[in-house]
């Protein structure tokens, strides 16, 4: 038998269908690796696969970010306040994948309530980057990215609010897709910022991304913001980019971006031209305000969503003689520093006298950013940027400066503000660490996005194995 772990998810599924690989053997190979994980990528690992796992995904197991509710299985969103919480129901997207034949492999580490860009805000300790264990895997879906990159999961689910799928995918050398808002049901996803949160896959390659995404989409009666995906999600096949126009934001000059990242980004543009694409400048005049608008809207929604953690119905409770003190002590002890910061920013931005200046203005800026993208997509097919301004940074490098940490999200926040899809694919190494190339496109155009990403991926030929890179170094 070939090395099971070396197979992509699509290859493993095909091997199962040909009768060359047993579903149980496949599950156990990954279960053993996940259980032996040294990157703190997992917070919980399944013992046994569920008995029925037929379906088109052929038993290829999936690692799931901790914040997806999974019935009877710890679902803590990386927070102390939900320690030991075992939900009585399963998130729609996890249930859909199980029905399609992808059983739950484990729950992955994350920044607490998905707030963070390094996984260092997890109450259960940071996940580590398999390319260099002294560095962060990115966040907030850091455990999912580390698990896929290290080969302890064939593929994984994450969530993206301001970059939480794409940035860790970039920092770990894998593919991360943030779908159009509404494409995937949010039912059973522990909420951070409801108008921005979207579930998506972290995978070894673009084909795997399309394959799993196909089984994630669809309207759900239990999420009124979900919509039926307008077409079938197809596996990508493009070899060329003839006639494709890539838009380069005119304020992307390299300032604020590590030189090695910019170099890989420009080399990828050259590859795109070789494949037949043209590259032109586009104006996104309000993108520069994206980060400011995001850091009003997301904390504001979070402060409302996190009001439910009060020590009454589930999770942590600190005993006190009166109700108000019980609430305030429970929340003091249950929330980590970043969550407290965001709850306070959000409460401030929504408070009487400040609402119009902060929340009201940020919602209007959001409109301008969405209009910028609409105008850009009149001229180009995709807007492209580096995914992250830098490669994976060292643990602790930015924990003392919340604002420096937020600047990691500069290139990834505008898309969720506009509700549009975006994908990060690995485009090479800088200083021995992976660099991500981001493409974004109009709402519900994931098929075209995946196709273009696939053509680029084939031409880039990135080797996504940290072990092979270390052996060759």
């Amino acid at each position, binding site marked *: 038998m070939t090395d099971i772990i070396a197979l992509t998810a699509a290859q493993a599924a095909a091997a199962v269908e040909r009768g060359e690989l047993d579903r149980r053997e496949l599950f156990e190979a990954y279960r053993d690796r996940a259980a032996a994980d040294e990157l703190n990528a997992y917070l919980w690992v399944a013992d046994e696969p569920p008995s029925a796992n037929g379906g088109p995904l052929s038993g290829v197991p999936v690692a799931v970010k901790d914040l997806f509710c999974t019935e009877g299985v710890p679902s803590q969103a990386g927070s102390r306040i939900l320690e030991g919480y075992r939900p009585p129901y399963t998130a729609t997207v996890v249930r859909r994948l199980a029905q399609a034949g992808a059983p739950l492999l484990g729950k992955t580490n994350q920044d607490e309530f998905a707030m963070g860009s390094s996984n260092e805000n997890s109450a259960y300790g940071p996940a580590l980057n398999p390319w260099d264990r002294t560095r962060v895997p990115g966040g907030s879906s850091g455990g999912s990215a580390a698990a896929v990159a290290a080969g302890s999961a064939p593929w994984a689910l994450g969530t993206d609010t301001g970059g939480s799928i794409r940035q860790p995918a970039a920092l770990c050398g894998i593919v991360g897709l943030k779908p159009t808002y509404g494409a995937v049901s949010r039912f059973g996803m522990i909420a951070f910022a409801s108008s921005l949160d979207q579930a998506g896959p972290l995978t070894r390659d673009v084909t795997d991304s399309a394959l799993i995404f196909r089984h994630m989409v669809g309207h759900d009666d239990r999420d009124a913001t979900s919509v039926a995906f307008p077409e079938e999600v197809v596996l990508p096949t493009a070899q060329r980019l003839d006639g494709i126009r890539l838009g380069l934001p005119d304020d992307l000059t390299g300032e604020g971006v590590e030189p090695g990242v910019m170099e890989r980004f420009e080399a990828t543009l050259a590859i795109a031209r070789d494949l037949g694409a043209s590259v032109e400048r586009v104006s996104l005049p309000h993108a520069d305000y994206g980060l400011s608008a995001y850091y009003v809207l997301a904390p504001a929604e979070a402060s409302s969503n996190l009001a439910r953690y009060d020590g009454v119905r589930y999770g942590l409770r600190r005993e006190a*003689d009166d109700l108000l003190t019980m609430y305030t002590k429970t*929340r003091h002890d249950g929330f980590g520093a970043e969550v407290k910061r965001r709850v*306070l920013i959000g409460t401030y931005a929504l408070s009487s006298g400040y609402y119009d200046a902060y929340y009201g203005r940020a919602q209007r800026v959001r409109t301008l950013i969405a209009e910028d993208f609409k105008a850009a997509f009149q001229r180009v097919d995709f807007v492209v940027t580096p995914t992250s301004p830098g490669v994976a940074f060292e643990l602790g490098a930015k924990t003392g400066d919340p604002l420096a940490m937020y600047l990691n999200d500069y290139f990834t926040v505008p898309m969720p503000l506009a509700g549009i899809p975006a994908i990060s694919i690995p485009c090479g190494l800088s200083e021995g660490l992976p660099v991500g190339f981001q493409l974004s496109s109009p709402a519900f155009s994931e098929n075209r996005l995946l196709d273009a990403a696939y053509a680029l991926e084939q031409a880039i030929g990135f080797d996504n194995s940290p072990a092979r890179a270390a052996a060759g170094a």
Partner: protein
Amino acid sequence: MIDREQVLHVARLARLELSDGEVTKISGELSNILEHIEKIGELDLDGVPPTTHVVEVPNALRSDVPRPCLPPEVALAQAPDVADGGFRVPSPTA
């Protein structure tokens, strides 16, 4: 700039106890973050409508028919304290 009193006011609204050390640290951090956020004050936003929902969807309606929900014992199973089929909490006016 956000001072200690404002931090404590917002923390009260958020039902969040903060230690003295946290108040000092957070008022500095929030001031830095708010300074960055205030960039959106530069823009002329007259006549720009707010976005509350990014994807145009019609109002999501469904028939109002009863369907099964969680049994009470399941809904209560994770609670820190239960009594008489409900969630028990300390008195609001101890």
